[in-house]
């Protein structure tokens, strides 16, 4: 297994109280595999990703528990110095907005070179060649000429390719893409996703793709983890989640997908607001919005239930039936 995350917990200490942004998240990922991490804004997707790199904003934010193992090595035990070797070297992350994630004050060449210099120790000619190579690999035409350009002289799509080049420049084994296409227009987005898949086949990295676009998930991901209020409420293969969603939240999310066949004139939404992670209800955090809510949902948090091969869900609807059906199998 490339990545094993167990019971990861991240808290933010604010003036209004402790926010449990990530509350016991577990998942695993293989090389060459893509996991889609979906959920509404504020569900803890981005924080989970930053926590994998141990880049939760201190002092307010802290990883308070759990385990993150990369190729069997426990990352939470590493020193800050060792962790810097991992960041950009073995784990890379592409941020959402290419406009703001590149430094406006340095040339593109400089910014790509920085990671390679740190992790591979290349200098001079070799460094330059390496930068040109990775820029061409992410599909930037005339890479040689682009080295001296500044981010503002490039289009959004090109900038996001540069961000991709930075992330992949040191051949990471794990790539986290945090909604990397939300600020791109549809055609550029499609090109970029194709590029990511091609690069993944070439370099065999594991990928965590954070998004709230289920269309992208269907196209790109092998498995899906649905996050709600700091927890993964359902996980399974993309086929399982799309064909037989078990958690009412996952069902609701899927229902929001506009399809060509549907004659409905209005776009559906998941009704209600996601809870503030600051004072979560005692039971299931989705209970207040859940169309299938039962009494037990409001009182106690559901345990994990397995509804199929590697298909797991946190929901009372399935806990009971799963327990009863298990011995029968």
């Amino acid at each position, binding site marked *: 297994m490339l990545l094993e995350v167990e019971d990861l917990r991240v808290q933010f200490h604010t003036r209004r109280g402790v926010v449990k942004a990530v509350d016991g998240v577990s998942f695993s990922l293989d090389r060459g595999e893509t996991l889609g991490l979906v959920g509404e804004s504020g569900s803890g997707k981005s924080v989970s990703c930053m926590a994998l790199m141990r880049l939760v904003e201190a002092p307010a934010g802290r990883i308070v528990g759990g385990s993150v193992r990369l190729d069997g090595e426990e990352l939470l035990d590493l020193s800050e110095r060792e962790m810097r070797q991992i960041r950009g070297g073995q784990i890379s992350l592409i941020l959402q*907005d290419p406009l703001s994630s590149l430094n*406006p004050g340095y040339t593109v060449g400089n910014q790509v070179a*920085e990671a390679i210099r740190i992790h591979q120790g290349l200098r001079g000619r070799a460094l330059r060649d390496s930068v040109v190579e990775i820029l061409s690999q992410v599909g930037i035409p005339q890479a040689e000429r682009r080295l001296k350009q500044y981010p503002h002289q490039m289009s959004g799509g090109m900038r996001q390719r540069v961000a991709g080049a930075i992330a992949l420049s040191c051949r990471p084994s794990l790539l986290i893409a945090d909604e990397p296409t939300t600020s791109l227009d549809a055609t550029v987005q499609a090109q970029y996703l194709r590029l990511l898949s091609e690069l993944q086949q070439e370099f065999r990295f594991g990928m965590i793709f954070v998004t709230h676009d289920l269309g992208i998930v269907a196209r790109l991901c092998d498995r899906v983890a649905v996050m709600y209020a700091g927890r993964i409420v359902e996980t399974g293969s993309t086929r399982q989640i799309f064909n037989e969603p078990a958690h009412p939240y996952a069902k609701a999310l899927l229902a929001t997908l506009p399809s060509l066949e549907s004659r409905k004139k209005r776009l559906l939404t998941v009704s209600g607001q996601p809870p503030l992670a600051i004072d979560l209800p005692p039971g299931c955090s989705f209970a207040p919005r859940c169309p299938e809510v039962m009494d037990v949902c409001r009182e106690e948090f559901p345990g994990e239930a397995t509804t199929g091969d590697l298909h797991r869900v946190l929901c009372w609807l399935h806990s009971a039936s799963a327990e009863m059906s298990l011995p029968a199998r």
Partner: protein
Amino acid sequence: MRRFVLARLAQAVVSIFVLITVLFFLVRLTGDPVERMIPPQVTEEVANDLKRAYGLDKPLIVQYGVFLGGLATGDLGTSLYFRGRTVSELLSLRILPSLELSVFSMLFALLIALPLGVYAAKYRGRGSDYVARIFSILGGAAPSFLVGLVMLRIFSVQLQWFPTGGREGLLSVVLPTFTLGWFVSAGIMRLTRSSMLESLYGDYVKLARIKGVRESVVIWKHAFKNAALPVITYATVIFAAVIGGAIVTEYVFAWPGLGSLLIRAVIQRDFPVIQGAVILIGSAFVLCNFLADLAYAWINPKIRYTR
């Protein structure tokens, strides 16, 4: 780039021209300089002779023409108060001490304020942040004359480490530099801190950390370069102001700078000296702004001066 420089130069000439024109007429509203030169019992005839001698009897517009004519040939006129000495001569004696004090104070201020501001931002809300902010509030709030006098009392009178005033040797610069520099550093530090706070939470800083860049490099290479822009603007404006405006500090330490020359000229209605000093300070101001613009282009490549 060349077009930008030329355009800027033309702009500078126009601004200075407007400045001296307004100034020329404004100072003449303050009264008659001859009154200050002669005892009250002198007859009007003598006073008129004096006016004639200095060309003050002519209509304003003629005086203005004479002034511009002189200016065109580089002649700033003769002082009314320091009789027989040309304005250029007086200014040239004062410009060096003024520059010396302002350069030293500025260096001192930057050396203190930049690291302090950066680390205050980095450790926002913690002890070092509060120390830095108190240092800056005191520097900005304590009047220069008070700081100067306290410095003098402790370091010159009691400890006798530094001279009490004047400009002799390197030691004499220390106390005025500290007094003026502390005041200047207050604003720079606060601006650096707030600008860094904004920059430190930027995505490109996040990306630098994601790349595995060392924290000190994250701060100084990635965050600081982008945070420096407003600080540079402010620092150059302050620098220009300090060259001619360190009047209180100059006074406390008997520093022979432009500020004290200007204040005396104003009191004595020494029109030519006031005009000369303001032209000089105004030019320094324009020059500093020009340099700030050049620094912008270096820091933020988005600002291109090709047009």
